[in-house]
């Protein structure tokens, strides 16, 4: 006789475990990640793709447009290729010139639109777009790879596979803007469209089309240089190219300032895990598929390159962990009752956190029918959580703080190490940065990302206020005297109903590693090949191994992200 899932106490992993920076910084993509769900949606809806215009000269300067056509609407990626002087080449957000600039246009641009876009899009932040532009982006060629690929193709050869795997992309986006930035369309205007109802699908459609352009411009330059002797890239090699991205601190405030959205993302992932763990038995074909996925992942991890010491150590641990995992599977771990739950419990004893989180990805993967519906639950209107319950008695507010912010109350923010950082926006292109509070100016312009500290401050003031006015006083009255606590009161009320809304770590402590925040968000995008370049920014790859739009009609492996690598 076997126990039930309830008997085994299989429940959602608690936020105290999941919402820690160290663990969030180990998240991997899952089948719920937005690149994955976007390509599934495009396939399900029968979208098709074409290149409408190619007016690029032999130097690689000019215009190209690509069209994505769906059941109700179509979109155009307008690509503008430029000549970039070496002294202006920078992948920082503060750069002012790029190899290529892009916009995703709502529909098919007319000649008037093109003329306008040719003026505005290369200016990026300094220009101004209109509501027909949905995305604004730019990219630079990879110094390490682009020329090599062009030269090889021009001479009639395929580029070196190892070099392609080492870098993984021909161009790297340095910004992909959506949601009303610099005059482009507000997300609200397109959020009801099925293709864009999930978060970041619009941005990621643009990136997927940009990937197509990066290969076509390399092939074009090869043809210009090599004439008839030039060749196109072999499809298998081409698929090993994604789009690079260097992601800096801009993503960190997003995670903190969208608590309801983050809750939805994490809740979907944790619910998927829970559903799998509650399965009583594992069918034979699923077991085989899972073992195959582990093998594929082993091969993928062997090609995961980074110069970052911390990440390199994690990858080494991961390699060992995957060996152990494969052995565990082969020893019959999936033949027992509640095999997935057993495996997750096993991982907590035998794998590093990086390994545990990769296992979450892997156990979810073979269960499409069980989890894919969760993709539809990953959007939310943050405005629904803006209102403060002003009638809430202060005692209740204090109780909620005690319940959800013990981690923050335990930190002594008077200690320099616990408050040594501050988050700010630079006047320079509004680049988000982290400063050293006790060493540089600007802390008086700190942005509100230190919710742990602020909620602890709120708790102290609540005690004082309640000692004078009683603990049944409503929050509204307290806030009239202390409007400086308004953001914290709202936050406490949000976290009382949304378990995964708060990152339960000190975001201004000396030992905080910002890239952990970035990796969490990027994993939900579906990024791979995390390569931290410092504690504040990370290189990634997007859509590596994914089908290209021009092969989408026949190449639709949903598990493209786990390629069979030689």
């Amino acid at each position, binding site marked *: 006789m076997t126990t039930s899932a309830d008997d085994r106490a299989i429940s959602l992993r608690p936020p105290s475990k999941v919402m820690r920076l160290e663990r969030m910084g180990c998240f991997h993509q899952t089948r719920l990640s937005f690149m994955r769900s976007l390509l599934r949606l495009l396939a399900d809806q029968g979208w098709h793709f074409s290149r409408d215009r190619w007016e690029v000269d032999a130097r690689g300067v000019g215009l190209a447009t690509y069209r994505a056509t769906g059941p109700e609407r179509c979109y155009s990626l307008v690509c503008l290729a430029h000549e970039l002087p070496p002294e202006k080449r920078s992948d*920082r957000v503060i750069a002012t010139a790029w190899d290529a600039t892009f916009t995703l246009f709502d529909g098919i641009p007319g000649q008037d639109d093109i003329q306008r876009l040719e003026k505005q899009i290369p200016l990026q932040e300094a220009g101004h777009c209109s*509501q027909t532009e949905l995305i604004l982006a730019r990219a*630079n060629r990879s110094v390490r790879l682009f020329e090599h690929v062009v030269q090889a193709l021009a001479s009639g050869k395929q580029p070196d596979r190892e070099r392609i795997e080492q870098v993984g992309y021909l161009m790297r986006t340095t910004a992909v803007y959506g949601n009303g930035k610099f005059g482009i369309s507000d997300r609200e205007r397109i959020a009801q469209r099925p293709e864009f109802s999930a978060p970041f699908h619009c941005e990621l459609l643009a990136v997927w089309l940009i990937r197509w352009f990066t290969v076509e411009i390399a092939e074009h330059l090869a043809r210009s240089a090599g004439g008839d002797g030039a060749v196109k890239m072999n499809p298998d090699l081409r698929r090993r190219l994604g789009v690079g991205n260097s992601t800096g601190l801009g993503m960190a405030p997003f995670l903190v300032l969208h608590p309801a959205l983050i809750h939805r993302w994490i809740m979907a992932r944790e619910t998927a895990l829970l559903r799998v763990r509650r399965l009583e038995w594992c069918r034979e074909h699923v077991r085989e598929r899972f073992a195959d996925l582990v093998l594929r992942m082993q091969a993928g991890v062997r090609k995961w390159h980074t110069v970052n010491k911390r990440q390199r150590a994690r990858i080494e641990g991961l390699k060992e962990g995957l060996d152990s995992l494969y052995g565990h599977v082969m020893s019959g771990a999936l033949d027992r009752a509640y095999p997935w739950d057993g495996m997750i419990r096993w991982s907590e004893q035998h794998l590093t956190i990086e390994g545990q989180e990769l296992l979450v990805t892997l156990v979810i993967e073979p269960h499409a029918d069980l989890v894919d519906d969760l993709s539809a639950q990953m959007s939310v209107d943050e405005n629904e959580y803006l209102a*403060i319950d002003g009638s809430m008695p202060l005692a209740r507010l204090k109780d909620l703080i005690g319940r959800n912010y013990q981690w923050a109350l335990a930190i002594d923010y008077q200690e320099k190490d616990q408050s040594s950082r501050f988050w700010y926006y*630079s*006047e320079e292109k509004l680049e988000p940065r982290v*400063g050293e509070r006790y060493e540089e100016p600007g802390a008086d312009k700190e942005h509100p990302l230190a919710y742990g500290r602020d909620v602890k401050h709120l708790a102290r003031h609540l005690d004082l206020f309640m000692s004078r006015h009683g603990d049944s006083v409503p929050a509204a009255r307290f806030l009239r005297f202390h409007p400086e606590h*308004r953001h914290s009161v709202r936050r406490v009320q949000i976290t009382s109903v949304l378990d995964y809304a708060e990152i339960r770590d000190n975001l201004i402590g000396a030992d905080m590693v910002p890239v952990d925040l970035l990796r969490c968000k990027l994993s939900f995008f579906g990024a791979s090949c995390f390569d931290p370049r410092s504690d504040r920014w990370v290189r990634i790859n997007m859509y590596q191994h994914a089908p290209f739009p021009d092969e989408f009609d026949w190449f639709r492996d949903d598990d493209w992200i786990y390629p069979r690598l030689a």
Partner: protein
Amino acid sequence: MKRSLNEIEQTCRKAAKGCGMPWGIADEVGKAVRWLHMFGLDGCGCTARHLRELDHGGCIAGVPGSDGSLRGWPGGPMTPMLAGPGFCDDLSGLDEAPIECGPIACPLLAAGFLGQAALSPERPVQVCWQGVEMHLFCRRLRISGRHECLYAESSPTIRISHSLLRGLEKTGKCPVIGDTDIAPDIWDELEGYAYWTYVESTDANRLSGAGAGLADND
């Protein structure tokens, strides 16, 4: 120049913070102004004028009475940037009694906060000042009465109650999601206030603050 709703929200949020409002209030200022523009009302103009007035000491924060109720002060009208969120916090108390207080500066801005907060279509909210009547909930708006007082710089009183108007969900004006023309001088003024939330860029923080060096060419 046309501005997206997101640009409007973010710029007004930072402008309010730049003028000394707490972040929690500034967040709601951004939302309130966005809401006003969705209904074709000049929230940016109101915000710029009001922040200018605040900057010049022309109105006060609005001091709560000993019972915590909002009230005006002989020194000048209270700012809608603190009163508006306060009204929102008290919406559940409208069942017992309407809110009536004043004087208040820029009452339209206060209505913006309420428009954002009044989510229930069953219980629309009515905001009145100087003969202006606004019936609102999040996705609908109807304005009647003295339109010439819509943009009043201040009002001796403002009254918030449940609206008795029925059928607002069918007859009220719908929001428009799209960009909107903002006068360049108003926008420049708001950006000027928002600028106070940014840290000056230096060679040192350009290098260390983002941790990427000056170039990360790849």
